[in-house]
């Protein structure tokens, strides 16, 4: 186990119990009435879900950055999560939302489809300014198209209640999630992280570019399908239960990279752990903030993530990233 993994596991071990106690009401297990019930049915599933979704987004970001050889890649920002949201909203429309698995399934398909489209347009281009520009534009267009179609679906919602439900869910939050949501997201996300973890060697080979990677025995089609599957599972299941939570996949690999030898294979597991930690901490902080209504997790992370993205751009301009 690497240094980064150990450090992150340690931090999660500290943060997890704290997150159970943190909230509008701080729980003292000894004195708070119904503490056991609140912990078991509200706080625990929420914290577990934060870990699961964060881990999925972190691993997805690391894999995407490795595959596209682009330090700006992020599933939330560049169309993957919006694709998943479109899939999920479509399932509302098709009337499938009643069945517990239809919405996640459609979200998975949406995420996988967006990843496939992005890889098709930008995946094969070389690294460097041209490749990054093409990827960024393609990602933003996919995000914009998916967002527009989602808005269209929302604007045609059958009633105001349905509309506000969808909009609220899209903003991304872990409020009032149950064990049922954990049951949907956890196995799918873990399967997705497993798929992405199998790509370590191929992502390492891709350090040398597409043709050198193939000359090292990388099977490009296998890699692409596993990536689509892995990203679809992690991001799709996350969006299905918590809406769009952006920037985690962007931020986390950058925080973790200095702790590793910078090979993508060494980044996947630590990024999953760091993603879990980041979402867990962020979700605890939004609960504690003294606001009239709870700050949405997705909005909170965007408030951190957007400046981070700008800072990254400035670094890249100076040739440091």
């Amino acid at each position, binding site marked *: 186990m690497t240094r980064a993994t150990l450090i992150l596991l340690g931090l999660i071990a500290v943060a997890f119990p704290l997150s159970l106690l943190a909230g509008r009401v701080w729980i003292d297990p000894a004195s708070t009435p119904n503490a056991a019930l609140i912990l078991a049915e509200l706080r625990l599933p929420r914290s577990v879900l934060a870990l699961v979704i964060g881990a999925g987004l972190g691993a997805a970001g690391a894999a995407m950055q490795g595959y596209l*050889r682009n330090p700006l890649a992020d599933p939330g920002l560049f169309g993957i999560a919006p694709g998943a949201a479109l899939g999920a909203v479509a399932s509302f429309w098709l009337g499938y939302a009643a069945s517990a698995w239809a919405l996640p399934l459609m979200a998975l398909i949406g995420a996988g489809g967006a990843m496939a489209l992005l890889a098709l347009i930008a995946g094969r281009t*070389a*690294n*460097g300014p041209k490749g990054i520009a093409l990827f960024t534009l393609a990602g933003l267009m996919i995000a914009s198209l998916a967002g527009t179609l989602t808005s269209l679906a929302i604007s045609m919602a059958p009633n105001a209640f349905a509309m506000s439900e969808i909009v609220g869910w899209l903003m991304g939050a872990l409020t009032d999630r149950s064990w049922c949501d954990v049951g949907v997201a956890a196995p799918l996300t873990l399967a997705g992280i497993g798929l992405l973890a199998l790509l370590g*060697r191929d992502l*390492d*080979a*891709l*350090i*040398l*570019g597409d*043709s*050198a990677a*193939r*000359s*090292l*025995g*990388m*099977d490009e089609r296998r890699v692409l399908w596993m990536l689509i599957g892995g990203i679809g599972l992690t991001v799709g299941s996350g969006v299905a239960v918590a809406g769009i939570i952006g920037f985690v996949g962007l931020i986390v690999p950058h925080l973790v*990279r200095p702790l590793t*030898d*910078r*090979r*993508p294979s060494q980044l996947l597991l630590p990024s999953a752990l760091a993603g879990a930690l980041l979402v867990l901490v962020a979700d605890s902080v939004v609960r504690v903030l003294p606001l009239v209504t709870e700050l949405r997790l997705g909005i909170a992370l965007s408030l951190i993530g957007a400046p981070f993205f700008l800072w990254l751009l400035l670094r890249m301009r100076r040739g440091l990233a």
Partner: protein
Amino acid sequence: MLRAEGITIGTRLRDVSTAIEPACITAICGPNGAGKSTLLQVLAGLLRPEAGRVMLEGEALDTLHPRERAKAIGYLPQDAEIAWDVAVRSLVALGRLPHRDRGNAQVEAALAALDLEALAERPVSQLSGGERARALLARVIAGDPRWILADEPFAALDLAHQARLLAQLAAQAASGAGVVVVVHDLALAMNHAQRVVVLDRGRVVADSAPAAALTPDLLRAVWQVDAEWIGKPGRRALVTR
């Protein structure tokens, strides 16, 4: 033997056949757009020809498992990129990927062969052009390939670094590897290759020992230059009139 048999890809390569020998340096020359890099990629198994096939030591290249092919053939692309700022040692160790082992001995040997031991822990972003080229070749050598295919490995190098890289490729050939390089510098091909394949508009127009291939007549026909070789064999220089 690495043999191309009747390779055709659109108009880029037209019915190209050649046999690359082990234990020597073969140079592929030709004007811009002649199909040199395309031929190298076909020989490396990275491009599938529309017609014809590549035989690696008696087996059709496209029937080999990619990993088996990768163990046999090391390929160094032109303008090789390095996406992340890994340390030199990690970069060189990528050559072991097809073997699925750490291959510490081979990695250390490759670092030593290219005089990179002192730079082993340095991030690749802090390397000079020459050091970077050496590190990329060390990556290929660490995989212990029987065939080394390099696309313009000397392009961005000054004279001293060219000479070092060349000496290293010659050493690989001397130890039995078949080395194929795409080169623009005809004097380099003349003096250091044992064989030269000249391509012109996708066809092989010469395929023999350098002195027999790169004749003034051929230079005029293919490159449209009037030029002659001066100096002694092994130290030839090309002067245009």
